[in-house]
Each structure stands twice: as C-alpha cells, then as structure tokens.
C-alpha cells in the first residue's frame, strides 16, 4: 500500500507540474503580455507576476519586451529656415506601454518590434523635417547660446513625435530622443573645405603680419622708452649741475669782498691749469719775468 500511495503522490506531482507548464506563465519585470482567447485579445498584463491561463488552443499568451528599445532614424535631409540643407540623424528610446493597444497593430507579423520601428521611422522623418524647417542653422551650431537652442530643437522633435504616437494610440511611448548626427550634404562639404582653406590662409597671414606689427611696436616702444630715459637722465644731470652752480654761487658773496683780487686769483689759476702739460711757450722779453732781460722795471737795480 505504501508503495502504491508513493506512486500516486508521484503521479499527482507530475500532473501538477504538467498542469503548471500548460496553464501558468510568468511575466517578467521586463515584459508585458497579452492573453488572447480564440485569437482575440482579452487580457493585457503589465505587472510582473505569475498568471494562470486556459491551455492552448483556447488561450494563448503573447509576450513583448517592454524594455527601452534603441532606435536610430535614417539620415534625413531637411531645409533649415535660412535655407541650409542639413542632414540629421536622430536616435530615440521607446518602449511598449500598452500591450492591448500595441497587439492589434503590430503583433500580426513575425517581427512586431521591427514593424513598430518602421512606423517610427516615418513619424520621425516627418517630425524632423518639420521642426528643422522652423529653425535657422544657428540654432544647431552656435558658439554663444550654451546649447539651449540645440536642446530646444531636440525637445520640439520629441514633442512632435510623442504627440503623433499618442494620437495614433500605438501603445508605445517615446522615452527620450536626441540628435546622433548633424551633417551637411556631400556637395556642401566641398565648399566648406574651400572656405576653411581660405580662412586658414587668412589666419596664417594675419598671425604673420600681426606678429611683425607687434614686434615693430615693441621695438619702437623700446626705442622711445630708451630715449625718454636718456632725456630724463640728461635733464636730471642738468638739474644736478644747476644745483652745484647754485651752491657755488653762494660763495660769490665771499669773492664780492674784493672782486679785483678774486678776478686776479681766478685768472692766475686758469693760466696755471691751462698750461699744465704738453704746452709750448713762445716768449719774448716783454713778458715777466723775462722783462728782466730788457732791464725795464728794474728800479731796484738803479741805485
């Protein structure tokens, strides 16, 4: 009997497991699901848990990945408001939010995600073209605006696509969106290169001539300052000499006591200093003391 009940328990367990395999399913946090009854969606599931279903072919479970999908649009050529051709590529993150709405639109095919992305491609291309056309090129590339316009353009595209997606009730949501590429048409790159080439030439010439001009400035400035310095020194020297002369003039009062004698002494000094060395004197008997030869003024000799 013991063995029989063991066998029964074992059998029961197996039936239970088989039943679970057949009638229960797990929906993960990363998934959403739709249960169809005879092909018609009857129960959307968005919460992670385990659920019971009637076995196939009565009910069937369709699970979808509800994680954020990465999506990139094609390069889209559009005209900016100021008539520049701009190629843009946009990336977006989207996910399935409403399996009940998503299922009837896309689940008929073997690749529901790829199908949904086809729709997104179309929506994104339209939205990008429309939004880019409303902005000048300077909203995309600018050295001054801190990127606020760039972000604003992205947000506008985002809002446009999101509203389209919601209006059509695709059962999905755009989570985020941004530019992946902002480029110019191939033809235009050629002319950009030409322009850059000439810009470079201008820059090279500019720095050459600026350098020379600046160097010239430095030199002439140096010359000017040197001249100024010398002139200052000259005037200072004159002033110093003037001071000296002023001090010397104070002694004038001393000489004033007897100008004749002062004059006489000065002249004697001058004579002595000027004939100090390397001089040749040519004398005759009129110059003292050689007038002695002449015998004049020798009153002392005449008794």
């Amino acid at each position, binding site marked *: 009997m013991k063995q029989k009940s063991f066998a029964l328990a074992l059998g029961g367990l197996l039936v239970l*497991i088989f039943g679970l395999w057949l009638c229960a399913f797990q929906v993960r946090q990363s998934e959403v699901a739709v249960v169809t009854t005879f092909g018609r969606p009857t129960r959307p599931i968005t919460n992670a848990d385990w659920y019971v279903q009637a076995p196939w072919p009565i009910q069937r479970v369709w699970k979808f990945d509800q994680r954020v999908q990465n999506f990139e649009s094609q390069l889209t050529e559009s005209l900016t408001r100021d008539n520049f051709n701009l190629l843009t590529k946009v990336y977006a993150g989207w996910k399935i939010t409403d399996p009940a709405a998503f299922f009837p639109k896309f689940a008929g095919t073997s690749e529901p995600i790829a199908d949904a992305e086809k729709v997104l491609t179309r929506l994104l291309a339209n939205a990008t073209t429309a939004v880019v056309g409303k902005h000048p090129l300077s909203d995309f590339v600018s050295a001054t605006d801190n990127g606020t316009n760039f972000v604003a353009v992205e947000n506008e595209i985002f809002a446009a696509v999101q509203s389209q997606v919601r209006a059509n009730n695709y059962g999905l949501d755009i989570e985020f969106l941004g530019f992946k590429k902002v480029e110019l048409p191939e033809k235009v790159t*050629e002319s950009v290169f030409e322009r*850059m080439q000439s810009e470079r030439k201008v820059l*090279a010439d500019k720095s050459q001539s600026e350098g020379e001009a600046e160097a010239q400035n430095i030199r002439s400035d140096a010359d000017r300052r040197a001249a100024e310095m*010398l002139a200052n020194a000259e005037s200072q020297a*004159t002033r110093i000499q003037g001071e000296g002369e002023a001090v010397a003039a104070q002694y004038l009062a001393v000489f004033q006591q007897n100008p004749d004698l002062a004059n006489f002494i000065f002249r004697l000094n001058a004579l002595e200093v000027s004939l100090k*060395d*390397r*001089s040749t004197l040519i004398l005759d008997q009129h110059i003292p003391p050689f007038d002695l030869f002449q015998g004049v003024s020798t009153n002392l000799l005449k008794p």
Partner: protein
Amino acid sequence: MADHPHSHDVLPEPGRGRETPIDAGSQALSEALHSSFSVIKVAMVFLVLLFLASGFFTVGPQEQAIILRFGRPVGQGQAALLGPGIHFSLPYPIDSHEKVPVAGKQEVRSTIGWYAVTPEQELAGTEPFGGASLNPVVDGYALTADNNIVHTRVTLNYRINDPIRYVFSFVSASNAVQNALDNALIYAAAHYTVDDLLYRDVLGFRETVLKRVSAVIRDQDLGVIIEQCSVQSVPPRQLKDAFDSVLKAEVNRSKVLNEARSYENQVLSKASADSSSRTNLAESDRVRLVNDVASRADQFQKLLPKYRENPGLFAQQRLTETLGRVYTNAQEKIFVAEAADGKTRELRGLFNRETPKKPEAQKP
C-alpha cells in the same frame, strides 16, 4: 515476459502482495502491468528530479545573474547579484534567472565624428585617402559653431551602477550609452569654434562632452556611472597643410615677438646704464664744482687780509710765483728776443700731436 510465467510461482515478488493467480492469462496480464508500472515509476521519479534539477544554473566567470521570483528580481541593487558558480532557483513559473554582464568597467567609443577607417589602417596608423568631399553616410564628422568641419572621436569608460535597471529597463543599455555619447559629441562640437576645439580649449571641449553625456545619462536613468572619457580631434585630412601653416605662422609669430622682446630688453638696459652713468657724472661734476669753489673761497678768505696790506706787492708776488710754476711745467719754452731794430721776426714751427710715450718721466 510470456516465455517465463512459471518462475512467479516459485518466487513471488514482495510487491505483488498476496494476490492469488486465477489463471495463466490474467497472471500474464498482471505481470505485464506490474513491470510496465515500475518502468513508469522510474520514469516519473526521473521526471520529478529533472524538474527540480532545472532550477540549477551556473554563472560563468565574466557574468553575474539575477533570480526573478514571479518575474520580479529577488533583492535590491548589488545584493541581487549572484557571482560565478552554481546556483539554484525554484523551477519555472515560480523563479527564473537572467544573466547580466559583470558590473565592472565597460567601454564605448563614439566614431560618428571620424572618417571611415578600417581596423587594419587604425592599427597601422595610416589614414585613408581623403577625397574632395565627405560622404555623410560613410565619413563621419562634426560641425563646429563656426560651420566648419572637424573630425573628433571619444572613448567613454563607465561602470554599471544599477545592474537591475541596466538589464531590465533597456534592451541594450550599452547602445543607449553609445547614443548618448554620440549626441554629446555633436552637441559639444556644435558649440565650439574650430580653433577652440582643436587647439585653444581642448580641455573645455572634453568637459562639455563629459557634462552633456552625464546629463543625458542621468535623464535617461541608464544605471551607469561615468568614470572617464578621452577625446581626440583633428582637422580634416584634406586641410592638414592649411592648418599646419597656421600653426607654423603662430610659431613664427612668437619667435618674432621673442626677438623683439630681447631687443627691448637690450635697448632698455643699455639706456638705463647710460642714463645712470650720465647722472653719476653730473653728480660728480657738481661735487667737484662745489668743492672747488668752496676751497677757492677758503683760499680767498685767507689771502684777502694779506692783499689788503699791500695790494701791489701781493699781486706782483702771486703773479711771479704762478708764472714761475707755469714755465717750469711747460714742456717746451722758446725765448725769442725782440730784434734790435724793432722789426717783425718770423718763426717757423713743426708741431707733432703724437702723445709722448713717457709722461711719467716729465712730471718731476
């Protein structure tokens, strides 16, 4: 089984209890049932074991795993992660598990701003030939704020901070990081002029990329932390010479400027030396003049009383004394007496300006 029915009489199996065979046919049926039943039993036990064993799984050295109970992760954050080894989870549909990449360093590269280059060329360090234009599909580039074209690429290292978010909220979070990086790169390039981006503010450009990618990743809540990023930017290959010539011109310019500065230094230091020597000279002149006059005045004061005693004699005496000194000091003295008849006499001289070689010898 039918070829050995007799054996059961001899050795009744314990499992059969005390059943008494009615006849050979029913006995054979019972035999068959019994043995197939035991086969089924073994199979059932095997199935149950298999079912339980399906809960075991292994985690490899480069990965980690998360157990999902009723679809939801067991545990939070790092605690939910199972390391390498063998693990057990309850069988489906109660538990299931998901492998996640090791929460270590991850790396993405953004090359949307770089020209098409094959891995072989990259390794060899050679550049593909640059045509006259850039095909937007093949060759990547970034537009700068002044509508110029540059090539720039960036490598970003990041760490998975929230593996549950990383794995369960994004089909491919690494692609999302890549997209954010691409976006940050063109965003940053669009707000830098070509010269700032390439030369003047390389660090600022890198900072802007980093700031933008951080902001985008934070907004999208990708569950990663950025560790570092490195940016490389070059001018278009087609314009390399033009860009080089600008650099050369700038080098040249600083050379010219340096030369000018050294000239400036030279001129100014010479002028400063000259002017100080000029003022020093003036100073010494002044001192000499003042001293000179002072000593003369002194001398005058002393002489004055003597002069007043006998002016004529005093003058005569001073004059003669001085003349005597003058004549003594004079190098050559020529005395020409007046002709007796009072006529003019002619004197011829040859003067040599050459400096005498022995000035010392003449002093005494």
